[in-house]
């Protein structure tokens, strides 16, 4: 019984971490419908998890070019290998404002993303997880360095 | 009379791994070749009734060995054991007369399954 309690506690911790980690986490199914939407995504988009749930990513965020994103995520579904995008390819996937609206120099948040496969019990990749990193500082600093 | 089995691979680790995967209850005489040229020679000398053949090797690669076997009409049952798992590679070796294809890394289970499937080994 005690074992079960610890496990339940673990799950609570994991949920808390998922909610508060300063990285965007989105789980998508094969139809690109949102299955998980963490606190970072909610805060920056203003869209609640309840509203995001089961919505197609491309409908909810028309700024994401569907063909481009499918090219990056198809290999994850089909080959089970993770893929990466960097801000040099596209400054951002989600059009979020700068995390520092007063002192920040960029208009918007620059993002790197990683797409990882999530296997179901039968080893098939049924879902993917999109991880969104805020790399605004890196991007701004590199752009300034290039100008010099 | 024991069956002569030849392991043809340029990597000593791969030869060892292959030898370990061969069923221990199979009464055979085991021979080794370290590249394709040695492999063809061994087959000519009657040491390769059954051949476990790698594809990427120096001097003469596995495709070259298969061509030589066909050209000289050598009596060898070839099982290709390769890391090149592209469907194209499997098709090519089958066309060149290989009997079966096993994906590396090899293990005892894979070896036994193929040997039984092609009737080389009878299950006890």
């Amino acid at each position: 019984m005690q074992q079960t309690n610890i496990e339940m506690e673990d799950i609570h911790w994991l949920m808390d971490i998922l909610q508060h980690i300063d990285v965007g986490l989105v789980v998508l199914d094969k139809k690109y419908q949102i299955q998980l939407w963490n606190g970072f995504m909610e805060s920056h988009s203003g869209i609640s998890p309840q509203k995001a749930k089961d919505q197609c990513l491309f409908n909810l965020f028309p700024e994401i070019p569907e063909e481009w994103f499918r090219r990056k995520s198809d290999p994850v579904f089909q080959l089970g290998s993770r893929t990466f995008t960097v801000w040099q390819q596209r400054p951002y996937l989600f059009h979020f404002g700068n995390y520092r609206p007063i002192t920040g120099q960029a208009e918007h948040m620059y993002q790197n993303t990683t797409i990882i496969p999530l296997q179901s019990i039968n080893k098939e990749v049924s879902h993917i997880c999109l991880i969104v990193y805020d790399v605004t500082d890196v991007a701004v600093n590199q752009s300034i360095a290039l100008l010099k | 009379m024991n069956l002569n089995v030849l392991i043809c691979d340029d990597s000593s680790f791969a030869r060892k791994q292959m030898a370990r995967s061969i069923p221990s209850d199979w009464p055979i005489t085991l021979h080794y070749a370290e590249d394709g040229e040695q492999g063809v020679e061994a087959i000519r000398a009657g040491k390769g009734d059954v051949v476990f053949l790698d594809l990427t090797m120096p001097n003469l690669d596995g495709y070259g060995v298969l061509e030589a076997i066909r050209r000289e009409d050598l009596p060898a049952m070839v099982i290709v054991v390769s890391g090149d798992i592209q469907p194209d590679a499997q098709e090519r070796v089958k066309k060149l007369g290989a009997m079966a294809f096993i994906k590396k890394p090899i293990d005892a289970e894979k070896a036994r399954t193929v040997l039984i499937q092609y009737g080389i080994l009878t299950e006890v």
Partner: protein
Amino acid sequence: MKVNACLVNEDQRDCYQELVNVAMGQAADHLARLVGAYVVLPIPKVSLIDNSDLNMAMHDAKRDTSVSAVCQGFIGSGIAGEALLLFKDTSFASLASLLKYQGPLNRQMELELLMDTASVLIAACINGIGEQLEIRFNQGTPVILGQHCMVDDILNSRQDKWQKTLAIEIHYTLEQLDVDCDLLLLFSEESVKKLNQRIDFLLD
């Protein structure tokens, strides 16, 4: 290239080569499925090189040609390394048509092509090695080292913190197509010691 017998002996080197052979086959299979063409597999080159040799290794890989390159760090069970992928710039035209990219072949599209192929090749190769050694590797975000530059320019800006490294070179080409890239896997000296322990376990 200097081979340091102290760090890796011949049996270990042979074992590394075979592990990479299997891993790069899996990576080639992934690339082949992505582009729909047959990937020609070479024999991988495993060597111990020191700092100055890296220049040579990369020069051998791409002498006097304009290249674009991306690198990615990976780490698992305390074993750290970097993957470097160098594409001959003449490869992109063929890649664009294989991957059915529409539009003008400019730097931006080349960057997409570089990232798409790098993601697939590097991940599959690293995972392939990891599976055989029972190491789960994490991958960092890829970093673009440069587009349309000479190998020297890529290396000149790098720091020289390390002395010796285990280098694995894989030269991928597509059959009958002008697509040519080199994948270099580099492990730090500390990591080689830990890797050797796992290799010795396999050799026993």
